[in-house]
């Protein structure tokens, strides 16, 4: 083991200097409200803050621009007490007015911006807009006094207020939003064009200010916000540099061209450490599963068959051989840091004989299914789809399941086919956005017409109802019970997919960088970072 990090980790750190951080792509835009991509969120996390923030290094909600909040009895009215003396980068005051302005801006989205491609996060989290075409979770925001707002919801949800910690719900300067026409999103051909605000003038309250975006060079430059209300950033300048090729990122770090980068491939971890770089492993906050689509092959609607699949897969081996250090075998459909997790679930050991037996019992000895796996992609939960697929393929063939392998590019048909239920078996997963079970389970199963085709089994609708009920349960303890129950049933009775693993994504930084706290949500803030010489 190297002595990495320890000596550079003195809390004070020095101020000044420039840090260049390699990212897999250039940000799409800088207005987090419209964003869906990692590079944008990474940048906006430095420029903006929300009412709620996550505690560094965890997925726990913590005060952000709101110092505190409370909920009414019925769970529908939330009162936020805002931090005082905060200014946006353009000098505009942050106050209740500004906060409600943001809520209203989101709710009153019109036109092209209503597309799920633009405001997908709003629609996932809050539902519809002011035009009431679809029900909305949000009802209103009222200014109680300059530092207090009241947000009314239409129903209770366990997600609130954690969701406000998502970068999308960052507070943006009303002046700048208006000045640069922040809401003028237009559809152009197959895609959307964003206003000047989103491309050139993001204005928030965060520790860094937007300096410039050199598109030709793929670099975004941020500078320290000297008027920041909290602990000021140590770096003078923070540069995010797009290096799409993973190997190129690694080499750039090795050559000293950049000071760190995100998501080093697990296979490189050891090598990077050996070279003296600091590897920051984030707590795993994701789930990787083998999905089972019940739509096309009737045999897959038989629990025994699904159990046979679960027994066939050597999850331990997979984790051991294919996944990075710190990865764990998944027993629930979300990591143990999330509410409602329980280890009291049926476990499926690697047991090929049992799998064969189960298949025989179900009369499915000659089960033949298609097995989808994605190319041209890596995800934090799935660092090497090809190798992982190969492993699982071997497992399944060992128990005599005939596989018709289909590989498609991630964006070139894979997701589409999987979403449309064409895949009988498939590899997929989820990166958690915030710490509630619904962020995982709700996304997977609450619509019975999902990629697993649970609607084809009688319990599909039941599961959906159970999830909705749990989410609307105001009482924490009751809710915990409900989720534990769901988790148990998911493994023992439903088994719509085989949860495989939680694998920790990592960050790597140079030896002379200190103060970076890895976050399970991959939304590190760089204001604590300092760089030595």
């Amino acid at each position: 083991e190297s002595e990495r990090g320890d000596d550079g980790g003195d809390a004070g750190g020095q101020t000044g200097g420039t840090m260049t951080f390699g990212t897999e792509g250039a940000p799409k835009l800088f207005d987090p409200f419209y964003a869906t991509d990692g590079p944008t969120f990474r940048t906006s996390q430095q420029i903006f803050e929300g009412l709620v923030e996550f505690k560094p290094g965890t997925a726990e909600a913590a005060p952000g621009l709101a110092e505190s909040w409370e909920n009414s009895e019925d769970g529908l009215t939330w009162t936020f007490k805002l931090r005082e003396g905060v200014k946006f980068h353009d000098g505009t005051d942050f106050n209740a007015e500004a906060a409600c302005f943001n809520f209203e801006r989101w709710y009153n989205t019109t036109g092209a911006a209503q597309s799920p491609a633009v405001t997908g996060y709003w629609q996932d989290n809050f539902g519809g807009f002011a035009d009431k075409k679809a029900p909305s979770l949000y009802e209103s925001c009222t200014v109680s006094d300059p530092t207090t707002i009241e947000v009314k919801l239409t129903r209770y949800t366990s997600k609130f207020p954690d969701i406000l910690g998502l970068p999308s719900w960052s507070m943006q300067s009303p002046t700048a939003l208006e000045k640069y026409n922040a809401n003028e999103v237009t559809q152009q051909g197959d895609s959307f064009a964003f206003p000047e605000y989103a491309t050139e003038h993001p204005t928030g309250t965060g520790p860094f200010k937007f300096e410039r975006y050199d598109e030709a060079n793929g670099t975004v430059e941020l500078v320290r916000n000297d008027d920041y209300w909290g602990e000021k950033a140590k770096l003078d300048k923070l540069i995010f540099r797009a290096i799409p090729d993973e190997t190129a990122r690694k080499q750039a770090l090795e050559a000293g061209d950049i000071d760190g980068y995100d998501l080093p491939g697990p296979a490189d971890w050891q090598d990077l450490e050996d070279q003296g770089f600091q590897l920051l492993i984030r707590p795993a906050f994701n789930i990787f599963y083998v999905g089972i689509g019940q739509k096309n092959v009737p045999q897959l609607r038989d629990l025994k068959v699904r159990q046979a699949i679960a027994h066939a897969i050597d999850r331990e081996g997979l984790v051991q051989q294919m996944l990075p250090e710190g990865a764990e075998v998944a027993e629930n459909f979300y990591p143990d840091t999330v509410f409602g997790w329980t280890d009291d679930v049926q476990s499926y050991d690697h047991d090929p004989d049992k799998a064969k037996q189960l298949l025989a019992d179900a009369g499915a000895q000659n089960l033949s299914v298609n097995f989808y796996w994605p190319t041209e992609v890596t995800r934090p939960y799935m660092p090497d789809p090809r190798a992982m697929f190969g492993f699982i393929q071997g497992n399944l063939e060992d128990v005599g399941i005939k596989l018709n392998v289909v590989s498609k590019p991630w964006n070139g048909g894979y997701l589409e086919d999987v979403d449309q239920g064409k895949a009988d078996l498939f590899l997929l997963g989820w990166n958690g956005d915030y710490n509630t079970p619904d962020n995982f389970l709700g996304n997977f199963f609450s619509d019975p017409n999902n990629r697993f085709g649970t609607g084809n089994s009688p319990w599909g609708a039941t599961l959906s109802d159970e999830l909705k009920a749990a989410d609307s349960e105001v009482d924490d303890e009751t809710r915990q019970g409900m989720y534990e129950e769901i988790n148990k049933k998911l493994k023992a009775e439903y088994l719509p997919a085989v949860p495989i693993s939680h694998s920790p994504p990592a960050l790597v930084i140079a030896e002379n960088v200190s103060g970076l706290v890895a976050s399970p949500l991959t939304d590190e803030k760089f204001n604590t970072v300092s760089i030595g010489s």
Partner: protein
Amino acid sequence: MSTRTDKIDALAEQAARTDSAGVSVAAAAWRRLRRNPVFLFGAAIVVAFVALALLSPWLAPYDPGERMLGDQVIRARDQIPPPQEGHPLGGDQVGRDLLSRILIGSQQTLMVGVLATLIGFTGGLVLGTLAGALGGWVDTVVMRAVDVMLSIPGLLLAVSIGALFSQPNQFTVILAVAMVQVPIFARLLRGSMLAQRHSDHVLAARALGVRQRAIVFRHMLPNSLGPVIVQSTLVLAISIIDAAALSFLGLGNPDDRIPEWGAMLGEAQKAIDSHPHLAYWPAACIIVVALGFTLMGESLREALDPKSRR
């Protein structure tokens, strides 16, 4: 566009001119080739490679798709099976025997090269023959299409085709690489055919009252094949390299149980600094084989070039 097409035409015509001396040229060329060390070296490589590809199922110690050394793999620590008893080259990233993969890989590589060339050749043959033999509007239509294809740089075309198959596999790679060659072959063949069409011996056959079909297949086509065959040798090398490039860009055959050098190289580059040998072996193989075909093709071309015969 025209410069490129002109060049092909010039070559075709040049070759057609050469060919009027026919068999004797071939014989003389062969005599020269037999003594040409460059050709012999290239041919030796090619022969060795083909032999390897044919014999590899018997030569390879293990099933190249089986992860027999899987337990020694720990991705997280970047551990792969080192060379050991029975596995002189060790294992690959997921624990398959590297030696077996290299050996068997020759089959796929040969297949890519040969099939791509065959497809390109056949496609070109059909189009070129149609255009060259029928002339008139058929010629115009075919050649316009060919020109459009030629107006996209080769690799870009291959990559585009490769990328745009919804479900890439070995065959789509071959097809992508082959498609690039079709217009070249077509143009080359048509050029020679056209030169043949106005040549005296074809005119003589027409004067004799020989049927058009017989003229095309007995006289024009055989005499036009020279440059096309030389081109084929070069295309073999190009297809192998192009296929490797496609694999590198992630557009290759996703199923890696059947090994292919290009794909192995593409995959191995991710870990080139920690396990360089994973990349060096397939890279060396590709380079040597491509060099073999190139040497052979270039010396063949030179031997058939009338200008080099003074």
